[in-house]
């Protein structure tokens, strides 16, 4: 009899939801880090009780939190609970909140400029961590996607962070610009079949891939078409909202872009549109069924200015054909007067059978499906606006 844990980051704190494998009754723990924005939390695949959290504030900056007991207790890496916060020499132990772009001659890239919303060049400035992606097999190794867009890695359990500067410095950085939420690196996908291959996505730059563990990178945006940049098929400048992959089919990627749902069958070398019969091809989330690599989920959102579901009906759309043909999933979801949004990191699946699907809204609801999307119910419904949702199936 396994359990399920759902990690929920919100505008005003973190919540940990747990259930047995029936997924009928849920226990809610939180708020953790009350009052702070928690952009993302994620557990290590190799040690599910090791959970990393990005706690952030426009006032007080970035804090990295870690739990080694599945979210019951938290500490800043390098400063375990109850231990002195300084070394015997009186120096601060905690470097875990320090994200400094690597500009060293040996390993770094010059801190040049990217574009502001109006195209004006502005220097890189660290703001927050959007996404934390623990390594597939080492709980002490974790990647952080940050704003202004860059990728950092820690190999000591989150105590210290080092930029993989080949991404920011590979050559197109001066053409990157922020999306409405800032210039954020929000998606990190580790290829389980090739430890050197990592995919990332940046708003508004596009998708990028490394095949050598993060030293060198290249844009992988061929086939994307974006009307809001001078050259709609440019190498970079695309506002990718999220990318998802099924671990059994790592060459196949699904993308929700700022307009257009896309698919690549060759590791991002080429993309083709699979929006098909969706009511709108704008949205933020996209995810793949845990056991059916051609079954994908999106939540269509009306844009550009509205950012709520079309017709006030909250509908998840499922394609069982890898795109193009979509069915609306409405059972248990509000079908009138619903004007919430579902943000890019706020959908996740568990690996139980049948597959569980979860998503959180800006209205504070977290909806769950125990049957792959056929029916839904709110497992908690009055949280602060939900920023991220991650599900874990536990032994």
């Amino acid at each position: 009899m396994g359990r399920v844990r759902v990690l929920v980051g919100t505008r005003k704190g973190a919540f940990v939801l747990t259930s047995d494998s029936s997924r009928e009754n849920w226990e809610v723990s939180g708020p953790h880090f009350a009052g702070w924005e928690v952009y993302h939390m994620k557990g290590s695949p190799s040690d599910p009780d090791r959970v990393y959290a990005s706690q952030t504030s426009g006032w007080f900056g970035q804090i990295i939190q870690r739990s080694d007991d599945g979210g019951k207790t938290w500490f800043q890496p390098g400063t375990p609970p109850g231990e002195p916060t300084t070394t015997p020499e009186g120096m601060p132990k905690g470097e875990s909140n320090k994200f400094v772009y690597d500009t060293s001659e040996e390993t770094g890239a010059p801190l040049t400029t990217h574009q502001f919303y109006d195209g004006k060049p502005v220097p890189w400035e660290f703001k927050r961590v959007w996404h934390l992606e623990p390594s597939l097999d080492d709980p002490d190794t974790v990647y952080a996607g940050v704003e202004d867009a860059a990728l950092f890695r820690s190999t000591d359990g989150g105590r210290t962070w080092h930029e993989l500067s080949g991404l920011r410095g590979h050559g197109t950085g001066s053409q990157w610009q922020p999306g409405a939420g800032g210039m954020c690196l929000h998606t990190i996908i580790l290829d389980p079949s090739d430890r050197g291959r990592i995919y990332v996505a940046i708003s508004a730059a596009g998708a990028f891939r490394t095949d050598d563990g993060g030293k060198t990178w290249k844009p992988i945006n061929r086939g994307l078409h974006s009307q809001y940049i001078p050259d709609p098929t440019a190498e970079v400048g695309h506002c990718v909202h999220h990318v998802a992959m099924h671990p059994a089919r790592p060459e196949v990627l699904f993308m929700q872009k700022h307009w257009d749902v896309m698919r690549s069958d060759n590791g991002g070398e080429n993309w083709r549109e699979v929006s098909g019969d969706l009511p709108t091809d704008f949205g933020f989330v996209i995810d793949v069924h845990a056991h059916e690599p051609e079954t994908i989920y999106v939540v269509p959102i009306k844009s550009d200015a509205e950012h709520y579901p079309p017709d006030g009906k909250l509908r998840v759309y499922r394609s069982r054909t890898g795109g193009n043909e979509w069915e609306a999933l409405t059972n248990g979801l509000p079908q009138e007067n619903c004007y919430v949004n579902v943000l890019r990191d706020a959908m996740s699946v568990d690996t139980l059978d049948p597959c569980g699907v979860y998503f959180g809204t800006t209205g504070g609801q977290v909806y769950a499906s125990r049957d792959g999307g056929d029916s839904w119910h709110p497992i908690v419904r009055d949280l602060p606006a939900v920023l991220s949702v991650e599900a874990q199936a536990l032994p």
Partner: protein
Amino acid sequence: MIRVLLPQPLRTLARVEGEVELEVEGAVTRDSVLDALERAYPALCGTIRDHQTRERRAFVRFFACEQDLSHEPADAPLPEAVADGREPFLVVGAIAGGRA
């Protein structure tokens, strides 16, 4: 003894209640007080001043003796009443509009 009053989010982070009391050697300036504060409570590193530039974060302000000291030089002496412990040095989160 220098008295520092932190905003609630930073008190939670530093695991303190009420005012913080600090010993500051030498001149009592904004930076020397914040240096002592960060030595005593490393969890606060980067929350008041930027990790790298050591500049005040944009939405943080410093008050003391009913004065706004946010834009004073970081190495300027703080008011005598702060230096001798009669008045606290206030770290304040700016009223930024209640965005969320």
